C-alpha cells in the first residue's frame, strides 16, 4: 500500500515514516507544498496524509488538486488547528478524515487502515489474527468460525487492537480511540479495565486463546506470543 506523507516538520516526518514503514506501508514523503504537488501529479498513491499548514502553501490546495485529477486516493488531514470550520471545509473538499495534533501513531494507523478498508469495495474484506476473524463491513467477529457477541465499544476495542497488533498500546491511546475526545483530561482511565476484562471474558468463553496481555498497568498488547 503506497502512502504519501506531507509534513513540513522533519522530526515528525521521519518518525511517522519509520512507524508506518514498520506497519508494512510503502511510504513516500514531501516536506514542502511544491514537492507534494509534484509527487501527487507524478505518482499514484493509495493514501495521502497531509498537514494543511505548509511553509509555501496550504495543504487544502493539494486536496483540490487531487480532486481535480479525479484521484482515488484516500486523504487524511493532519492539522494543529482544532477548528471545526477547518475540519468541515477539509471534509467538504473531499478529505476522508481529519486528525488534530498531537495524535497518537496507533490512531493514525487505525485511521489509515479503516479508510483503506472503506475504499476496498470489492467483496468481503476480513482481518485475521490467530483464531480471531473480523468482518469490518458487517461489524462481526468470529472465533474458530463461531460468532462472538460483542458490544459496539468492545468491538471497537478489539478492532483497534487487531489493527495495532504486537504493539504496546497505552490506556490513553485506546480510550481516546474508542471513546473519542470526550475522554480527554479524564483523570482515571481505569474504567478501560472493565471493558477489556469483559472483552477478554467473552473471547475466552468462545475458546479463543488469551491474546490480550496487560503490561504493568500501563497498557495492553495484543500478541500471539506467550
Amino acid at each position, binding site marked *: 500500500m503506497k502512502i504519501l506523507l506531507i509534513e513540513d*516538520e522533519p522530526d515528525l516526518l521521519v518518525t511517522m515514516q519509520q512507524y508506518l514503514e514498520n506497519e508494512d506501508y510503502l511510504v513516500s514523503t514531501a516536506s514542502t507544498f511544491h514537492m507534494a504537488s509534484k509527487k501527487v501529479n507524478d505518482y499514484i498513491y493509495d493514501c495521502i496524509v497531509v498537514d494543511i*499548514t505548509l511553509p509555501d502553501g496550504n495543504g487544502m490546495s493539494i486536496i483540490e488538486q487531487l480532486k481535480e485529477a479525479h484521484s482515488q486516493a484516500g486523504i487524511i488531514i493532519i492539522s494543529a*488547528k482544532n477548528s*471545526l470550520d477547518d475540519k468541515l471545509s477539509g471534509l467538504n473538499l473531499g478529505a476522508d478524515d481529519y486528525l488534530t495534533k*498531537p495524535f497518537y*501513531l496507533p490512531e493514525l494507523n487505525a485511521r489509515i487502515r479503516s479508510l483503506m478498508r472503506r475504499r476496498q469495495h470489492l467483496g468481503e474484506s476480513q482481518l485475521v489474527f490467530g483464531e480471531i476473524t473480523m468482518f469490518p463491513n458487517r461489524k462481526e467477529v468470529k472465533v474458530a468460525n463461531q460468532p462472538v457477541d460483542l458490544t459496539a465499544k468492545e468491538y471497537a476495542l478489539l478492532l483497534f487492537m487487531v489493527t495495532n497488533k504486537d504493539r504496546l498500546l497505552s490506556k*490513553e491511546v485506546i480510550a481516546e480511540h474508542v471513546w473519542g475526545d*470526550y475522554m480527554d483530561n479524564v483523570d482515571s482511565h*481505569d474504567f478501560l479495565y472493565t471493558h477489556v476484562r469483559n472483552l477478554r471474558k467473552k473471547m475466552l468463553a468462545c475458546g479463543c486463546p488469551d491474546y490480550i496481555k496487560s503490561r504493568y498497568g*500501563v497498557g495492553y498488547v495484543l500478541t500471539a506470543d506467550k
Partner: protein
Amino acid sequence: MKLVQKTTRYIFLALLPIALGGVFLLDYFIHQTISDEIDELLHREYEQVKLKLRQHPPEATTLRNWDHNLQITIATTPGSLSSPILADSTFVDPLDNELVRVRKLLATYSVKQHHYVITLHQPYLEFDEIAHILSMGIIICFLALVSFLLLFEAAIFQRIWRPFYAIIDQLKMYRIDQSESVTFPVSDVDEFALLSQSLEKMIRRAGYQYRQQKQFADNASHEMQTPLSILSFELDLLQQSSQLTEADLHRIQRSQHTIKRLSSMNQSLLLLTKIDNQQFIQNESINISEITNQLIENYADYAAHKGMILNRIIKDGPYRPMNRQLAFVLFSNLIKNAIRHGSPNTSILIQVTSHSFIITNQGDPLPFPEEEIFQRFVRNQALPQSTGLGLALVKEIADQYGMSVYYAYASSIRRHIVEVKFENESEPKK
C-alpha cells in the same frame, strides 16, 4: 424619534408663540390705526362744519339735516365743552335698519351769539371689513410660510443626511472577519466626511488587530502542537522497546500524561483567546436538547464507570444561535465537570428547559471561594489532570452569547448546582 421630526417639532414649538403673539399684536395695531384714521376723519369733518357755520351761520329754521352722519342743533347757552369729545357708540343704519358700531364726535360751537351742538358719526363698517381681510390675508401667508419651511426642511434633511444613512448601512453590513476593506460614501459635508474618515481608520485598525490576533492564535497552535506531537511520537516508539522495566514504562506514561495536559491546556487557552477575539462568527441555530442528549450518550460509559446515574429532564428545543463548536465545548465541559467532580455512586441531574440548562451533582464543597469558580486556573489541586480552564471557558462562551452562568452549593444535600440562563435578563442581546 428621527432627528428631522425632533428638529421640526422644536421649530414648530418656537414658531407657535410668535405666531399667536403676532396675531394679537397685528390685530391691535390694525384697530389702533383704523381708530386713529376715523378720529382724524371726524376732526376734519368737524373743521369743515365749523368753517361752513362761520361762513353761513344758519338760523334754527334753516338747519339742514340731510346728512344723517351730521347733526347740528341750536343750543340756547354756549357749550360747556372746550374741545370735542370722541366716543364709541351705536347707531341705527336707516338703510338696512341695522345697529352698527359708530365713532361719535360731540362738540359745541358758537358763532356770533349762535350756539350749536354738533354731532358727527362715522360707522366702523368698512374699516372692520378691511381689518378682517387684512388679518385673514396675513394669517394665510404666515401658515403658508410655516408649512413651506417645514416641507423645505424635511427635503433638505433627507438630502443632507443621505450620506449619514449610507454610512450606517455600511456599518450594519460590516463584519470584522471580512477580507475586503470598507469604503464609506464621500460627502461634501465636513462632519460626514470626518465621520467616514474616522470610521475607515478605526475599521482598518480593528481589522489589522483582528488578523494579527487570529494569526497569533493559529501560529501558537501550530508551533506548540507540532513539537508536542514529536515528543508524543518518540515516547510511543520508545515504549515499544522490549528492554524497558516497569518503572521506565510508568515514566513514559507520566510523560505522555503531561504532554496531553500541556496540549489540552494550550488548546483551551487558544480557544479562550479566539473567543475573546470573537473569531467564532459562524452561527447556526443550535438545538440545545439535541446536543445535551448526544453528550449524555457520549459520557454514559464514563459515568457508568464511576457508578453514577445520569438523570435527565429535557424539554424539546430550545434553539439558540451559536457556533456549533462552542456549544459543544460549553455543555460538554459542564457535563464532564459534573462527572469528574461528582462523588462515585451518586446521581447527576441534567435539566433543559426553554430558558435554562441546569446541572447538579453531589460532592464535597469547593476547596476554593465560590466566587472564583469561573476564573482561569482556579482548580481543585487534588485532581492533577484538571487544567482549571473548563469553567472559565463555560463562562466566556456564555458571555459571548448573552447567556449568564450561576453557581450554587446546597450544603444540606451536598449538591453543586450550575445553571446557564439562555437570556441574560439585565441586558438582552439580539
